[in-house]
């Protein structure tokens, strides 16, 4: 098992404004699990997309058993025996379990028709191999996330993949399901597959991985055998820099409480969450992807309604029924999904910035009044210059900006409404270092002006470097709360992964 099954050499990939990967290498060996470790934005998902044929690398080569390969389409990658199981399972809700497993390569019978009986029989066998007690004819939409994962894994087995990429497969699973998954990974390893296992959870990395590779800011910063390392050195590699040095110093004085949330619950997404936020404070929300943090924030913002719980701003109870209500109550939410929920990429910068303040830039102060373009440009200029936006002109479309500058436009849009509370959901995810620093400095500035800030982040240095207090969530529930000076990276990771809190809760 010395020669690698799959080797990546000097892979580089750039997107407008960001270098996602700079000449990284990676080796995957048959019958071994390689853990890929890194923060969000370290380049892991870009690497997965290159391996599965969605992106083509700008430079570098991919070899499979010493043969150079290139994947023009996802189909090519699948043909070469590479398959990925994604964190957000991408399958077909309306098709049956068996069809999801065999779509594109179903067993054929007479006349080239799909042999349903054989397909179901083979699906049944695969499902048994992965330990799933599922009826192959069940429609996928009737299943929970865990079961969908099992279907995805069965699909991976069905195409007889040689390389299996598992992208945070345990992010949304319960402890028991995770145990079952470990058994499955063991089965795959026994079967001689090369497995790339992406995870934030250190306990599972040490439990199942044979090798590790650590990415940071698009570069490979360390690799080796798991048995030669320990979790603190991995965290050091992953975080890399001295946490305090990078982030701007705290200058804000924490004032009186402004936001009070108690007992916030949702039937399926989160349960019994309470916290207080004060003027000038930055409250960090840490957790793994899918811990329910964004769902909580969107509920505070009026996108969904809680089933129980209250929220009050400045002592006045508020229950926003729409984002419009929330904005007028003084709370805004800068979403994580910049392209889908934040920026309107087809419209110019100034129209994006004014969109949440149409009343203010219109004569008569109402939305049906005439837009005063002078006021509109003045408003835009005021906020984008504070954020040091780089653009050719204010009527440039937002879609033509880099990710970092798009984020500045999005933040400017919500700031222009002059909120009392601003929620930033993964504010620096996928943006370049320079823009990151600008966003961080700006958050400090806002806090110093007396704004109350909530920052949802999955990046440990960001959480530790920016927050005054840290609130940790796991599977929709609060699991820990730290004052900034009391928290260590390992404590956060352990709390979010549910290792220590399990005993505490019991």
């Amino acid at each position, binding site marked *: 098992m010395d020669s690698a099954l799959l080797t990546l050499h000097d892979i580089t990939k750039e997107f407008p404004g960001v270098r996602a990967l700079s000449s990284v290498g990676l080796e995957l060996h048959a019958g071994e699990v390689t853990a890929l470790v890194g923060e969000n934005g370290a380049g892991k998902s870009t690497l997965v997309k290159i391996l599965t044929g969605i992106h083509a690398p700008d430079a570098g080569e991919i070899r499979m058993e010493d043969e150079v390969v290139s994947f023009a389409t996802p189909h090519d990658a699948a043909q070469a025996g590479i398959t990925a199981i994604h964190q957000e399972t991408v399958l077909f809700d309306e098709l049956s379990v068996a069809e999801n497993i065999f779509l594109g390569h179903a067993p054929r019978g007479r006349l080239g028709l799909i042999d349903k009986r054989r397909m179901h029989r083979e699906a049944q066998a695969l499902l048994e191999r992965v330990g799933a007690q599922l009826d192959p004819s069940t429609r996928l939409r009737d299943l929970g996330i865990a079961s969908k994962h099992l279907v995805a894994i069965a699909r991976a087995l069905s195409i007889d993949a040689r390389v299996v990429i598992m992208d945070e497969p345990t992010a949304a699973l319960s402890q028991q399901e995770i145990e079952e998954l470990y058994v499955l990974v063991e089965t795959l390893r026994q079967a001689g597959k090369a497995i790339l296992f992406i995870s934030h959870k250190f306990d599972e990395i040490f439990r199942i991985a044979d090798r590790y590779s650590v990415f940071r800011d698009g570069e490979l910063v360390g690799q080796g055998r798991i048995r030669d390392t320990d979790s603190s050195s991995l965290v050091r590699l992953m975080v890399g820099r001295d946490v305090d040095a990078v982030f701007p110093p705290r200058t804000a004085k924490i004032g009186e409480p402004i936001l009070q949330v108690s007992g916030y619950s949702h039937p399926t997404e989160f349960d019994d969450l309470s916290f207080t936020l004060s003027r000038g404070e930055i409250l960090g929300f840490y957790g793994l992807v899918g811990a329910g943090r964004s769902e909580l924030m969107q509920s505070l913002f009026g996108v969904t309604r809680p089933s129980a719980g209250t929220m009050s701003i400045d002592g006045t109870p508020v229950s926003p029924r729409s*984002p419009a209500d929330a904005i007028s109550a003084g709370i805004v939410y800068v979403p994580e999904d910049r392209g889908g929920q934040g920026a309107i990429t*087809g419209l110019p910068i100034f129209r994006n910035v004014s*969109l*949440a303040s*149409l009343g203010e830039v219109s004569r008569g102060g109402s939305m049906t009044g005439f*837009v005063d373009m002078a006021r509109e440009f003045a408003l835009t200029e005021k906020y984008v210059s504070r954020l040091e936006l780089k653009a050719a002109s204010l009527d440039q479309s937002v879609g033509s900006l880099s990710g970092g500058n798009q984020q500045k436009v999005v933040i400017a849009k*919500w700031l222009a409404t002059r909120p009392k509370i601003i929620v930033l959901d993964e504010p620096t995810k996928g943006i370049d270092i320079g823009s990151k620093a600008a966003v961080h400095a700006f958050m400090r500035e806002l806090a110093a002006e007396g704004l109350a800030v909530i920052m949802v982040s999955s990046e440990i240095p960001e959480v530790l470097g920016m927050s005054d207090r840290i609130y940790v969530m796991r599977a929709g529930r609060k699991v820990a709360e730290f004052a900034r000076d009391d928290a260590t990276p390992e404590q956060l990771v352990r709390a979010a992964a549910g290792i220590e809190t399990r005993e505490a809760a019991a």
Partner: protein
Amino acid sequence: MNTQARVIPHRANGRLRRIFGSWEALLVVIAIAIFFINTQASPYFLDPWNLSDATFNFTEKAMIAFAMALLIVSGEIDLSVASIIALASTAMGFALQLGAGTPVLVLVGLGTGLLCGAFNGLLVARLGLPSIVVTIGTLSLFRGIAYIVLGDQAYSGYPTSFAYFGQGYVWWVITFEMVLFVATAVVFYVLLHRTGFGRAVYGIGNNPTAALFSGIRVPRVKFLLFLMTGVMSGVAAICLTSRLGSTRPSIGFGWELEIVTMVVLGGINILGGSGTIPGVVLAAIIMGLVTFGFGLLNVPGIVMSIFIGLLLISVIALPRVFGSFAGLHRKR
């Protein structure tokens, strides 16, 4: 910290080039070409009274098209507009039987349009149903009610004063409908391009989630757009009924497709988010000129529709096929 911040210019250079490369510029060229061909084709074309008569074949449709343009920019569509005409016209005829005078007839026409628009708006904006299916349903329902009321009968005998809307002249060759056409064009131009409401419509059409998150009351805006489209269908019903002087349940049959064609030809993206009212005005004029020109040559209407169909597909396909070459911009 922002002492060194560069000042970003408001507008990029090359506005002139953008204007000449715009969709509307292409439509102007097409309109001029067709106008020129028409003058060559028939000596009767330039007669002011003939030209005035020719405007009737687009003014009523265009009034609805302007409202429909906003609706399509927002990402929705209303296929029931022609059926609203039928129902509004039937309601007016019914009121006529009960002895209503012109002012009441107008109110009944507008009111029916408003109610129909509200019904569509309720189903789409409040219940979140797909507008294309909902309005195919109301397309059948509204005209169906007209058929139930009228069967194979017709209402006629509208008062003389009612005839003004579809047959009256304001001055010389300028018809009342022309004035209404210009007025509604201006109103919808201002609404879409000069007000905060218009900004919200573009925002919704480009990215409904981001618009919602920006505090725009998306359901309310969509509801209002359906209401406007319904009212404009009511206005068109008044004009058309007045012009024809009678109501049959088949009135305005098939207009929905011509109106959508007009809107799309005018450069409104059928998927929402872009397009302008001037584009729709130009498209209306082009369709009017084509109909009139073929009419002068005694070419039947159906051949004209082939031409419009080809124009629709080719005008949209060519920039896509030769995208970088033509470099056409769609203004927002």
